[in-house]
């Protein structure tokens, strides 16, 4: 069986690597070999995607690099469509595998659809219900033309059902759970917490990158006022993009700058190491809310909404926005409310890649 994987952004590389690993393991023992060809559209130029990224995380190098970047959405999707079609015509795969909700996802789906190549969509069925987001358009359209829809949660399955999509839909769990479990051991073995002068369970980890927080001075100030309070009793670690660091200069020059440990953005494994041993994570990132849950670390989300409602329903995530009092309330009440009870995970059991592999093989036969 031949599979063409189409990816273009760093998180997609990380997710796809879980599938690539499953394919490699499968090929060791099975006669029905899987050949995977990876197309990198080049959509996101990312300084963190250096050679180290590929070697350290054992991520396979792409077979094709289309180098399509820095274009408006229409032109970017159009150019990708043209270039991907050429590759698909050459390779004639049994499946095209796409991930998530980027322009690369949609361009891959469209190109395959026009050539009648079956499409498998990993992370199908997610919806923000905001059609102004280009990602939402990419999600909806990719799902519409996919033949196999691999949903991370039951809610994703229901979203698809509401759009009339029921055939080919599988709840396989979240591939990021696989990824987290896989690299967790590696991170633990390779990286010492002493690097940051902290110990297991005795620090808070914070990330802020969304424009709604960084570009809004009163929100940013309020978040940092809360962080300063927390830092009085717990070390706070804040890896931050240089652009955001520049914005901090607009805040009141107060002593808190000394109490918060501000770092450069961290490589994947170091970030994972900090996530898994934090006492609490404060974040405005989508992915980190979910990763906090995988590590069973309480999360405080510095946004007014979340796409990961399951984490909130189970008590592992609190949506507080940028309000200082709400942030501190959430921080102080976690100890009482959460006794780390084990619930049924809504994101599967970390065996998503193998489930997808099995379905691909069954569908092919």
């Amino acid at each position, binding site marked *: 069986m031949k599979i063409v994987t189409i990816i273009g952004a760093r998180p997609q590389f990380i997710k796809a690597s879980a599938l690539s690993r499953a394919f490699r393991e499968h090929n060791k023992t099975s006669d029905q070999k899987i050949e995977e060809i990876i197309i990198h559209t080049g959509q996101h130029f990312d300084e963190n995607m250096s050679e180290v990224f590929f070697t350290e995380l054992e991520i396979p190098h792409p077979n094709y690099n289309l180098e399509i970047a820095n274009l408006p959405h*229409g032109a970017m999707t159009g150019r990708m*469509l043209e270039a991907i*079609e050429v590759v698909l015509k050459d390779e004639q795969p049994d499946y095209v595998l796409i991930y998530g909700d980027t322009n690369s996802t949609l361009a891959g789906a469209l190109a395959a659809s026009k050539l009648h190549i079956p499409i498998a969509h990993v992370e199908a069925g997610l919806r923000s219900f905001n059609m102004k987001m280009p990602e939402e358009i990419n999600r909806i359209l990719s799902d519409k033309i996919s033949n196999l829809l691999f949903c991370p949660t039951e809610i994703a399955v229901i979203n698809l059902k509401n759009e009339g999509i029921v055939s080919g839909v599988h709840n396989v769990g979240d591939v990021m759970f696989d990824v987290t479990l896989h690299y967790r051991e590696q991170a633990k073995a390779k990286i010492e917490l002493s690097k940051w002068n902290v110990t297991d369970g005795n620090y808070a980890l914070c990330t802020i990158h969304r424009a709604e927080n960084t570009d809004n001075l009163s929100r940013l100030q309020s978040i940092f006022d809360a962080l300063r309070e927390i830092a009085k009793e717990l070390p706070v670690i804040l890896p931050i993009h240089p652009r955001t660091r520049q914005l901090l200069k607009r805040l009141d020059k107060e002593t808190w700058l000394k109490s918060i440990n501000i770092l450069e953005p961290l490589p994947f494994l170091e970030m994972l190491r900090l996530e898994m041993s934090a006492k609490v994570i404060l974040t405005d990132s989508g992915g980190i809310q979910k990763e906090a849950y995988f590590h069973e670390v309480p999360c405080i989300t510095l946004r007014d909404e979340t796409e990961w409602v399951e984490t909130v329903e189970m008590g592992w995530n609190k949506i507080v926005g940028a309000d200082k009092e709400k942030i501190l309330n959430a921080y102080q009440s976690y100890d009482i409310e959460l006794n780390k009870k084990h619930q049924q995970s809504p994101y599967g059991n970390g065996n998503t890649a193998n489930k997808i592999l099995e379905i691909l093989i069954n569908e092919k036969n």
Partner: protein
Amino acid sequence: MKKIDIVVGARPNYIKAFPVYEALNKTGNFDLRLINTGQHYDDNMSNIFFRQLGMKKPDVDLSVGSDSHAVQTAKIMIKIEKEFLRKKPDLLIVFGDVNSTIAAALTAAKLNIPIAHIEAGLRSFDRSMPEEVNRILTDQISTYLFTTSPEAEKNLLLEGKIKKQIYFVGNTMIDSLVKFEKLFNCSDLLIENKLIKKEYILVTLHRPSNVDNPSKLKDVANSLNMISEKTEIIWPIHPRTWGKLNQYKILLNERINITKPKGYLEFMGLQKNAKFIITDSGGVQEESTYFGIPCFTVRDNTERPITVNRGSNILVGSDFTKLFDVIIECGKKEKRRNLLPEKWDGASSERIASIIINNIL
């Protein structure tokens, strides 16, 4: 003044768009721009519409030409995005199910330009048709959905679209038929081929599944040869199909009159005066319903079931080896009831214009 971009790209688009452009233009409320993608470049298939129908020349011509589906869609997206960025329209109107439809809609959606899709909600439920994929995707990202039949609304609701997005307005293609019916004329063509009104069969076939595969084309020729023994046939044929017939030395009965593809007015004349029609086209199913001419649609499914349920269309399946028997069988039956579908009355474009004024812009 609110700005509206109207995008057309292929022959069926022009017929649907023309009355809508006129209706909007008449209101004087809008800054209209007509963009032709140039998806079809054959003179008989495009320019002739502007000449014969007196339709306004496009303000913008993207001239993308023919290519693979993906490349054609891609080229339109790349070129049309520049146009949208320059003019920043308040509304985009697209028609039907061609590559220009999805390419323009997708590009507009990413720029948060609201989209109105005319002829929304048609479904053949056959994903192997590229048109079906174009329809499904365009409807998903359109804000306003103008439908030709109640079935279309049901299809859209099943895909999660909401009732207040959907406007049942009828068929704008019929508006063109009503407006130009007096001009439909094929007399010269009939004289030239020694054919008599109501005593010939019109054949139109263009789907790759019927005309690209030599063994299928042989079945087509065999069945048409048999049918033509009973009633003479006229077949406006695409040069590519004609080439295939010659290449594979497939012989046609002399009672089958081959012509080049015809202009709109002449082709409509041929439909209106036919005894019956054999087709694999979408538009012809609707046009024949308007004329009340029996139409044998040689496909396994139709995205226009109302032409079968109410109109004069008969879906006979894609097996040409059975076509002769099916037609004979139909001839024995009582005459079918031919009803014009609701709101196929020539006023659909007026309805759309007033909805756009009152509810949209």
